[in-house]
């Protein structure tokens, strides 16, 4: 028998089960959106596209939608036209919960019941209806809550594995609460539908409802230890709530965004792990090491370069090495470590403990533990300058802003989206377009005369804007300044989002770019601390963590 899929918590699942349906939440993340991009548009919500993919691949034959949002409305139009489904229905759910709205919902329930029983040739089974009401079990002790837009099953699994507490999925369709109450025994079908409509509308409102003040209870639970606020690219509803939660919530908060593909979930691992590190007190315990010769190494395996720092027992930097990562993270790390050891005149056995960080951290088998670059950057920056409260790290493939407390622990952090705009890669690509080295670029923007604005945020479009500026014979210095401004405003926006505070330190390879640093300082209205060890900050933090492992033993 085919499963009947639904996408929204306002779907009358119990009614459909009473009509013989086997209901399931459609929540898988596809590999990509090849088909949906073609028959819909790339710039609609990823979940909507995931629904199209599943239907077009033939996996879904029965689907009940709700007019949740503009994307789902379009998905309905497209799927109705495709003729791929045996049963497709859209409930016209109103956005207010008043008396009139309940009456209209009752009419919708009758309409759906009629359509589905005609399709299946079944009648309403009263006993099955009563049985379908099952309460949704909730966490009893401390927990982490996922809020916001719906989260795909695969990403949810990943979150559960990373977090130090049980995870409650309170996002979108998942906080459905129908089932806590049982229908009145003595009511006839019409009476049951009256009661049921009220029960559906009584749920915690979703963001599309006109009055959604009740949602505050989602983040006011005393057992709540942290919030992972999830948004889906091109779903705008939840960014509004995020803006509010960010203001009002009193527990640690992580914002992540996915486009509902499997690829996007992989990229989120670093953020999730860093968040887990910041909320769990006991994560640093684990492998304990004995003090040997008193040397500690940190390896930061980034997308562009692999950095190694070796510290002695007095926290002096014995050596700091920066090498291009090359094709493989593991091989790159091996090479960099060897070079560092050679530079310091040490052997592998002299290193008491080693911590790996950066994108390639888990690919390296050498280390004693791996810690995200966010936590390591904070530690490293604090070591270099204890007055620093905000670290801006613009790396090759992403940029981050990290806020730290007076002990160097992460308070909050944000990272750029998947897009390359505002990262080191963006500048590299532009330097290539302008046929100059990064070094030349670093100085060029300092001497600008005309204040050019590059308006495109997209790297590809910005490149074509640069090409046309070159064609207009605009001075190189002016164009570079325009590019710096584009990166600086993206970064300043991140800093504002995380609530950046004085003093600011800039780390990562891009901190060597003098003209960008200057533009960013202007945008932020403050000065940036740029340490000569800025590029080694992540590796330094890792080495300090390695030292902590031993000192505690």
């Amino acid at each position: 028998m085919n499963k009947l899929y639904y996408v929204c918590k306002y779907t009358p699942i119990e009614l459909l089960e009473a009509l013989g349906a086997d209901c399931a939440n459609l929540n898988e993340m596809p590999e990509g959106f090849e088909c949906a991009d073609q028959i819909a548009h790339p710039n609609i919500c990823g979940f909507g596209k995931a629904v199209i993919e599943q239907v077009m691949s033939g996996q879904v034959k029965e689907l009940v939608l709700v007019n949740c949002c503009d994307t789902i409305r379009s998905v309905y139009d497209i799927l109705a036209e495709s003729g791929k489904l045996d049963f497709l229905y859209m409930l016209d759910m109103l956005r207010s919960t008043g008396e009139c709205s309940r009456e209209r919902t009752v009419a919708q329930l009758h309409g759906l019941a009629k359509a589905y029983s005609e399709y299946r040739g079944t009648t309403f089974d009263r006993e099955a209806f009563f049985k379908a009401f099952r309460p949704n079990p909730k966490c009893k002790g401390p927990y982490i809550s996922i809020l916001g837009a719906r989260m795909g099953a695969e990403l949810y699994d990943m979150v559960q594995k990373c977090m130090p507490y049980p995870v409650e999925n309170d996002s979108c369709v998942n906080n459905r609460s129908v089932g806590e109450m049982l229908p009145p025994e003595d009511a006839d079908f019409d009476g049951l539908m009256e009661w049921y409509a009220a029960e559906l509308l009584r749920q915690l409102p979703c963001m599309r409802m006109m009055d959604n003040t009740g949602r505050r209870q989602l983040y006011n639970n005393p057992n709540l230890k942290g919030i992972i606020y999830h948004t889906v690219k091109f779903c705008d509803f939840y960014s509004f709530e995020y803006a509010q939660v960010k203001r009002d919530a009193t527990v640690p908060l992580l914002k992540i965004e996915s486009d509902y593909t499997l690829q996007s979930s992989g990229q989120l691992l670093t953020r999730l792990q860093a968040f887990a590190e910041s909320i769990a007190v006991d994560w640093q315990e684990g492998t304990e090491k004995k003090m040997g010769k008193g040397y500690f190494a940190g390896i930061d395996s980034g997308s562009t370069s692999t950095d190694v720092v070796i510290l002695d027992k007095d926290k002096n930097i014995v050596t700091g090495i920066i090498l291009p990562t090359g094709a493989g993270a593991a091989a790159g790390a091996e090479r960099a470590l060897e070079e560092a050891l050679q530079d310091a005149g040490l052997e592998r056995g002299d290193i008491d403990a080693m911590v790996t960080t950066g994108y390639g951290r888990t690919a390296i088998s050498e280390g004693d533990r791996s810690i995200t670059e966010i936590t390591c950057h904070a530690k490293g920056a604090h070591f270099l300058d204890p007055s620093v409260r905000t670290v801006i790290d613009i790396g090759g493939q992403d940029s981050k802003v990290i806020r730290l407390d007076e002990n160097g622990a992460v308070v909050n952090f944000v990272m750029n989206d998947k897009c390359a705009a505002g990262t080191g890669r963006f500048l590299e690509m532009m330097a290539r377009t302008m046929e100059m080295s990064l070094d030349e670029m670093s100085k060029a923007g300092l001497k600008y005369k005309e204040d050019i604005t590059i308006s495109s945020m997209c790297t590809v479009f910005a490149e074509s804007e640069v090409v046309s500026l070159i064609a207009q014979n605009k001075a190189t210095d002016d164009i570079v300044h325009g590019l710096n401004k584009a990166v600086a405003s993206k970064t300043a926006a991140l800093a504002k989002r995380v609530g950046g505070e004085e003093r600011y330190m800039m780390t990562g390879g891009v901190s060597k770019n003098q003209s960008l640093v200057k533009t960013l300082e202007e945008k932020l209205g403050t000065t940036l601390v740029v340490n000569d060890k800025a590029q080694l900050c992540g590796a330094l933090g890792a080495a300090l963590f390695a030292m902590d492992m031993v000192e505690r033993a």
Partner: protein
Amino acid sequence: MSIVDVFGEYVDKLCDKDPQKARVLLRTGWQYQDLKFKFMPDRRLLPADRYLARLMMDTMLKPLKAPEQTAIVSIFTPAELLQEVGLSPYNAEGFSCYLSASKVERSCLQQAENTGIAETLCSYHKTFLGAAQRGLLPKPRCIVYTSLMCDANLLTFRALSQLYDVPLFAIDVPLQQNEENVQYVAKQLRDLAAFLEKHTGKKVDEDSLRARLETSKRTLEKFRQFQMARADRYIPEDLVSPLYCGMTNNLLLGTPQEEKYVDMLLHDVQSAPAKKGKHIYWMHTIPFWSEAVQKELLFNENSQIVGCELSQVNEPDFDPSSPYEALAHRMVYHALNGSVTRRIDAGIRHAKEAGADGVVWFDHWGCKHTMGGAQLAKHKFEEAGLPLLILDGDGCDRSHGGEGQTSTRLGAFLEMLNGDKL
């Protein structure tokens, strides 16, 4: 740097220091523009469209001059009830257009994004919200919006009501077209009348409302006559007049000014020369700022816009004698409500009436409904014999432009339509 660039930059900088002063500067700039429309109108336009430019500018200036006599509204909020209690429309989409034309949109967009608002939200909504957050826009008497057509309405207006701490009224419009839904909306409109009476101290007079709806009905009928009359005529067109009309035919519907405008159109079309070049019907908003679009369609005898969907979303098939039901009927049967095929069918009908040779379906950034229906539209318009170009862009935010792409796509489409004359 152009005057507008300098103006925009001044307003922007001043807004960071003193939003009140920035608002005065903005008002002064727009008043100057209003005077220019009065004394130095663009003579290339029809007299009717010159009148329209001023009408629109006056509408935009009212909230800056006397905000307490205005209500922030979404574009499809029925205007007649507000007129009854003497409130002028303070329209989010329209304001964002004018802020963009004054080149202050970027910092407003950035402000909204800094608070965590998604960069994928419609830029009209985001610009308005950002401008309000920066203190550039004054506080209205109240806010009235409808869920019709666009999710962003549900978000932006709620956020604005919190920001300004003013009363909010939402009209929920169901998707399906039936009498029960008309009654559901009519009930809400009666509640809206009571809400407006409470917050303005003025009475909604039913006879007067009936008369307004009769004006609206006549205006829509005459506008349709004009659109049909232009099918074999050449009317010089810029990029903003069709867009203005898309605004006034919603926001000012029921006013004698809007009726005067369509009367002028009907008068002007009689002396218009015979058709020249290709007629383009435009679906959704128009990126008036885009040089690539200007190059092809601004006062161009080879191709002109002959209508914008937004000016033809309401059909005159309502009965003014029951005014609340009439307004409710208009909203439930609105061309952009329900399945996208209703929207496409209306577009095909209107494009054919205006003698269109081709249609542009403009995927305005952030408009999920328009983007989601794009491929269906392509198929159905072309089945009806109307070539359709899907054009991605942004009506308001220059950073989503991609001017090179716009130029190539639009240029190639027009070349294709002109295939016989290349």
